[in-house]
């Protein structure tokens, strides 16, 4: 059975670019789900099986850090790995994300090679 990924980013452009980068990196998923913020993501996760999540940090309504905090309190989804993809590179913010369960981070802008390097070992 194949794997499913959830992309969380308020920019529809960036969600398309991440999806394209996954294909260019040779990483295939059965389903690529999309959400525009943490609230949409939590709603989607109630109904869909997701194997890995790629999430932005700065988003309206519920940002990536708040999403991680909320996800950690939900037993059904708390173990799904989350990789942050963001313009944020500050050690404090990335450190906070990792303390809340994020397994790594990719800085925007990124190349398909970088996506493969970081995401590949997690699959």
């Amino acid at each position, binding site marked *: 059975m194949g794997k499913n990924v959830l992309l969380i980013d*308020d*920019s*529809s*452009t*960036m969600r*398309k*670019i991440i999806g*394209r980068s996954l294909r260019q990196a040779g990483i295939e998923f059965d389903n690529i789900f999309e959400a525009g913020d943490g609230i949409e993501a939590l709603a989607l996760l109630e109904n869909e099986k997701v194997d890995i999540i790629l999430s932005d940090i*700065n*988003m*309206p309504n519920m940002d990536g850090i708040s999403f991680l905090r909320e996800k950690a309190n939900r037993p059904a989804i708390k173990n799904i790995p989350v990789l942050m993809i*963001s*313009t*944020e*590179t*500050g*050690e*404090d*913010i*990335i450190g906070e994300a990792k303390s809340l369960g994020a397994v790594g981070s990719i*800085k*925007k*802008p*990124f*190349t398909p090679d970088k996506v493969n390097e970081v995401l590949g070992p997690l699959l």
Partner: protein
Amino acid sequence: MQIRDKIIESTQEIFSTMVMMDVTASEELPENKSIHCESITGLIGLAGTYKGVLAIHMPNAVALAVTGSFLGMDVEEINADVEDAIGELANMLGGNIKTILSENGKDINLSLPSTISGKEYNFQLASDAAERTVIGFDAESGRFHVELQLEK
């Protein structure tokens, strides 16, 4: 390295890796104009140790070509896709500027990106105390400008 050089380096990196488009910084000093016609501006605010705004000003024709290359599809009018793409470019550029200026990532906050577009609009200095850096970039489809207004 001065902030001007950092903006040039960041802009070229974003365009080459994400937009699949090479751009070169213009040697010409840009006109000191605040009126933009038939254009779109993506902007992001900075708050904290440094306050200011980062903006990317594109004539519509350039914005359409950039969005088309970014998304890998033909784009014929200024629409939500163009606004989202130009806003995201400002977001990435703002993130890079924050990395340059910030000591730990938490002393400067970035706003969410937004866009302005129209037949004619006036983009003024956020504050008299703000230092303004404007750099022109040339793409195959035309010239656009990146502007940083910064107040410490």
